[in-house]
């Protein structure tokens, strides 16, 4: 793997996280618990699409084969998607979605804060813009985890289940491999492994305030960052890529 290949995969990982998460968030449209929340979740889905466009567009530039953000989103197979598994899990219920948003946004808050100081001007600019959105997502998810955790007995139980079930997927966020190592030395990207303590401290404090138990399970689901996914991603892509696949010559 040379520098260019590492950079390409690196941008795809970041872009795919945004793209697949936008898919799940967009599924809430006309399905949220109250109309106001419908608007909020749709805003987050839109933020994610914007982020995916920027990152996949940049990935295409780095690859240098003329592929656009749409080519990369709509004409790539499952094994070439590098999002973390957490982004592709089904929404289940509002508590699951909020737990997922909390885990991801808390990680991204630390990660993109670091990336904003990267030596790569494009990524630094994308990160600076994205960081504003992330702060809002984190604040929104935190508030809901507090409300649901410390709300009714029913909401507490649902929130605890969501927090527990998604916990084994959070560790994948902190994996650091050869791609990360290359980017750390080349552009001063943050090291995900180094963010685990900050994340743990931040998320644990929120869970405790929400009267929830902090999970202790050590088991880790992994594979997404290298293209080995859960069964969910295949279904997401089958649906998302349906039109470009069925009508390969059409422009939309």
């Amino acid at each position, binding site marked *: 793997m040379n520098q260019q290949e590492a950079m390409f995969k690196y941008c795809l990982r970041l872009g795919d996280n945004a793209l697949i998460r936008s898919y799940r968030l967009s599924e809430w449209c006309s399905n949220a618990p109250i109309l106001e929340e419908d608007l909020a979740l749709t805003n987050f889905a839109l933020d994610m699409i914007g982020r995916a466009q920027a990152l996949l567009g940049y990935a295409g530039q780095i690859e240098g084969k003329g592929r656009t953000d749409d080519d990369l989103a709509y004409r790539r197979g499952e094994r070439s998607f590098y999002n973390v598994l957490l982004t592709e899990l089904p929404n289940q219920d509002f508590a699951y979605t909020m737990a997922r948003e909390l885990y991801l946004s808390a990680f991204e808050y630390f990660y993109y804060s670091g990336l904003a100081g990267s030596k790569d001007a494009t990524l630094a600019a994308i990160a600076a813009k994205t960081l504003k959105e992330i702060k809002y997502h984190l604040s929104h998810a935190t508030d809901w985890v507090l409300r649901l955790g410390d709300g*009714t007995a029913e909401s507490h139980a649902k929130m605890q289940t969501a927090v527990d079930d998604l916990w084994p997927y959070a560790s994948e966020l902190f994996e650091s491999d050869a791609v990360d190592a290359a980017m750390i030395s080349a552009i001063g990207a943050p090291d995900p492994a180094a963010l685990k303590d900050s994340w743990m401290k931040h998320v644990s404090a929120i869970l405790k305030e929400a009267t929830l138990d902090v999970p202790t399970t050590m088991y880790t689901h992994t594979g997404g960052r290298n293209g080995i996914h859960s069964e969910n991603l295949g279904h997401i892509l089958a649906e998302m890529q349906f039109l470009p696949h069925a009508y390969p010559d059409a422009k939309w």
Partner: protein
Amino acid sequence: MELKEQTAVQSDLLKSFEEKIGRDDAIEPKDKMPDAYRKHLIRQISQHAHSEVIGMQPEGNWITRAPSLRAKQILLAKIQDEGGHGLYLYSAAETLGISRSEMIEQLHSGKAKYSNIFNYPALNWADIGAIGWLVDGAAIVNQVSLQRTSYGPYSRAMVRICKEESFHQRQGYEIMAKMMAGTADQREMAQDAMNRWWWPALMMFGPHDSESPRSGDAFKWKIKRQSNDELRAKFIDKTVQQAEVIGLTIPDKDLKWNEARGHYDHGPIDWNEFYNVINGNGPCNKQRMDHHKRVHAEGAWVREAAEAYRAKKEKQLFQSKN
């Protein structure tokens, strides 16, 4: 108060209300208004709000399958606007003394209606174009007219809605134009969508003026400013040219320009179908309602938790102060 006195007070009220309407002064929530005016508005505004919210479903059917990132972005932003517009309209209706919960309950019980058009399915991607171009196009004709409606909160909501909706019709037309300039499959989809949505779009304006006279309270009280047929003609006149520009055929062999009237004449509208769909027999009536009921029921625990959390926090704050 004696009955006679009460009647006199009532007629004084009505007189000052009608004077206000006559001066084109907006009616505001705290103003005295006849019961029939209030009821008419609640029915109309809540129906309008429900239409926006139920209207999110047919378009929502294509969010996960939008064929490009740009298309997905636009579609999401548009559906989000519909939700926002439902929200503005629920708020306007609430100023008349009905709660959003009550309005939702009336929707679920069938007492309140929503626009018939959303009981049709969105079957291919061109349907998203047709909904934006024809359905929003028809809605906007009506909404522009409603900006001058006599009830202040309704009128203000319509002004905001019209401003925001100006991109909706354009995005729909853009989809249709792109598809008509595309492959044979795409052109076929576009014409198919046109054929299925044209007549239901015309029905959105409601029965002919001969069936629904201009002389009713809605006109007297300036809730409605233009008749169904006037608005329908406006829509047809501007849409025919747009269809021609991109090569779409309007599925009406009787459609032709009438120089004397200064409008297009159109073929007969199938009012049997219209009333059939209103009475619950459209292709998607049950699906749309079931969806709304399911989401409402599934969200109840979240709303209750939010209230419970607030109550807990207020109690804690009170205890810490005392």
